[in-house]
């Protein structure tokens, strides 16, 4: 990154790693945090006025689908990287369900090479846990991690064979990375496309029951415990899963977990108009499940907010509800959508940032999540009060599949620094690369 000298002036500096919450200036120099305080010597520095804004360590999204290689009509590393920094994310963890699947170091290297050239955000690939995401033969995990993968996952698919899952957990200790699961028992999901309950019954659409998730979270916790592995549960959506994760943590199992913005603020009732932009996997759940996820996020059972950013083209979503692919955009809306939890006083600003930044960095063992002097200057500047209307057509993602299209948002990432360079400014757009 370029050697800019930047003074972020007068913002509320929020650093969960240091429990810092104060109005101060932040000086960025040589790609790192050089100083925090008042009356800093900022000769020659570019000034970023941050009065009224929160200055936080850059957000790290543990769960995105960048679609490259193979489905560049939905998204690519460049557009996904731009959407990330426009949403305050300085790094994204991209899932392996590309075409070809990221189950070989050559694919990992391709992704990282493209990211270096095209993406303003850092890109951390996830390697597949099994070849071709087929759930049968494990990948060369050590080679994938040596090539740069930060986790292993068959996300999008569930490893149904419990024997394979056990071996994946056991072997993953050689690779020293977490196994991220997509916990849905396909034999219970069957044709299900919306949460099973009064809403699926009213809609007349096949239900996907909560137990499909709960059964597999129970299985995966049990197997990870047996193997002594690090299980990271992707996109938790049910009260039952939150309870299981909480209990496992209490007895010392190495399990971490994430929850998406949509599972924190939307219930299955959002699906009542048959809008395919409310179709996700796992599906939107009941108000009781949403409350449990929010409580789990507040008490730390769920470590991270991760978007499961899943771009799909308009023509793919504009079909029968059962035929539409599941998933929604998340990178550009995560900040305003989840700020609701701060406004409801379920999370303090510092704890909100911890779940978007410090905890994700810890889970994948990468730098970030801190504004300490000397830390890499990945910074998100958020205006928590800024009101704007989200129009996906004007966003940076190539796709438009958002349940929040056209809605007024409160709060927005207004500037983003990666490696000390200003890569995004809300007035000027994406500036680098």
């Amino acid at each position, binding site marked *: 990154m370029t050697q800019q000298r930047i003074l972020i002036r007068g913002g509320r500096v929020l650093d969960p790693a240091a429990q810092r919450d104060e109005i101060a200036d932040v000086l960025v120099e040589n790609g790192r945090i050089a100083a925090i305080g008042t009356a800093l010597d900022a000769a020659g520095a570019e000034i970023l006025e941050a009065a009224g804004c929160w200055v936080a360590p850059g957000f790290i999204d543990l769960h995105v689908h960048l679609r490259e290689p193979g489905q560049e009509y939905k998204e690519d590393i460049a557009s996904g990287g731009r959407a990330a920094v426009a949403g305050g994310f300085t790094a994204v963890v991209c899932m392996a369900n590309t075409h070809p699947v990221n189950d070989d170091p050559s694919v990992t290297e391709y992704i990282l090479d493209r990211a270096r050239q095209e993406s303003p955000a850092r890109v951390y690939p996830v390697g597949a846990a099994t070849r071709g995401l087929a759930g049968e033969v494990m990948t060369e995990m050590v080679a994938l991690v040596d090539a740069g993968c930060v986790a292993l996952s068959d996300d999008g698919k569930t490893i149904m064979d419990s024997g394979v899952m056990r071996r994946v957990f056991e072997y993953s200790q050689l690779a020293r990375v977490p196994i991220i699961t997509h916990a849905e028992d396909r034999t219970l999901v069957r044709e299900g496309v919306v949460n099973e309950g009064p809403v699926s019954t009213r809609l007349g*659409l096949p239900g996907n029951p909560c137990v499909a998730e709960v059964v597999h979270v129970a299985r995966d916790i049990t197997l990870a415990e047996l193997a002594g592995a690090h299980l990271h549960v992707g996109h938790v959506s049910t009260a039952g899963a939150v309870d299981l994760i909480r209990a496992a943590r209490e007895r010392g199992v190495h399990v971490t977990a994430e929850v998406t913005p949509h599972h924190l603020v939307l219930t299955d009732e959002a699906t009542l108009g048959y809008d395919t932009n409310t179709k996700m996997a796992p599906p939107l759940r009941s108000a009781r499940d949403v409350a449990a996820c929010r409580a789990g996020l507040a008490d730390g059972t769920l470590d991270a907010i991760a978007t499961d950013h899943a771009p799909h083209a308009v023509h793919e979503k504009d*079909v029968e509800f*059962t035929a539409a692919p599941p998933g929604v955009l998340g990178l550009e809306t995560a900040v305003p959508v989840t700020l609701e939890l701060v406004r409801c006083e379920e999370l303090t600003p510092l704890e909100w940032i911890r779940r978007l930044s410090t905890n994700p960095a810890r889970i994948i063992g990468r730098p970030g999540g801190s504004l300490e002097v000397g830390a890499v200057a990945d910074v998100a500047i958020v205006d928590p009060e800024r009101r704007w209307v989200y129009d996906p057509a004007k966003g940076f993602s190539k796709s438009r599949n958002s349940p929040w299209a056209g809605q007024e948002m409160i709060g927005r990432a207004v500037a983003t620094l990666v490696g000390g360079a200003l890569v995004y400014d809300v007035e000027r757009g994406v500036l680098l690369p």
Partner: protein
Amino acid sequence: MMGRDLLGIEDLERADLERILETAERMQEVGRRDVKKVPTLRGRTLVNLFFESSTRTRTSFEIAGKRLSADVVNFSPSSSSLTKAESILDTAMTLDAMDPDAVIVRHKVAGVPKRIADALAAPVINAGDGAHEHPTQALLDCFTVKQEKGRFDGLTVTIIGDITHSRVARSNLYAFSKLGAEVRLAAPPTMLPAGVEALGAKAYTSLREALEGADVVMVLRIQQERLDGCFFPSIREYASTFGIDRRKLRFAKDDAIVMHPGPVNRGVEISHDLADQRPGVILDQVRNGVAVRMAVLYLFAGRSAKREG
């Protein structure tokens, strides 16, 4: 008052239902004439857009439209945009560009008529979508019950069969509840959808309890394919536990009537004799279907003002 489209009974008020039923009574009179045709919809074009095959419902709509002097066009494309290059919305918008006065839609996936209605200028009438709704079936069932019983308030309507996969059950549940009847649902636990009591009916797994004091016994078609999803063990066991015959009917009121939306599996969900003898009223339902659909076409396709495209 009623919206532009007829997508489901859930969207309607009691007064809307009563208005449709009253209109249907007048339409039935047309069907009794020597010349069964009135000029009400002359010069108007109706499209039967049936993505899922259905000879009975399509024919009923076609006859209803023709008795009102409308031009009726049948269009039955292949059923899924997964197997066909042209999407359902493209198909519907292509038809819409030919300026029909109403589009009658049937599709095997719930919600498709709503998606089409959102995209089209013409009013859309739902002729059955997946397990969601089949509003004209419920209306003709209500019409039949009104003919037989003269009222809805205080009646008990028991719907028996695969509630989970039944649009007829859902539409009838809404319709009879709104009109003041008590609705009961009876099925094996595997065929009672999750949370169905939130829709306003009481669910039973005991057929006998569900039939106790029932005025109307509505039997749903059981589908052999449901054996695959592990919903019930065999046709024989279903017939013996939930199939309706004169012996089981004794649990209901003495003057209870037996209804079925058709097509009937004789000897499975309903005994052979009840399929065409009283207290079975199945052919009356079919007959009333034409009058009810005439009323629906008159009320929804007869309005001249179109929505801005």
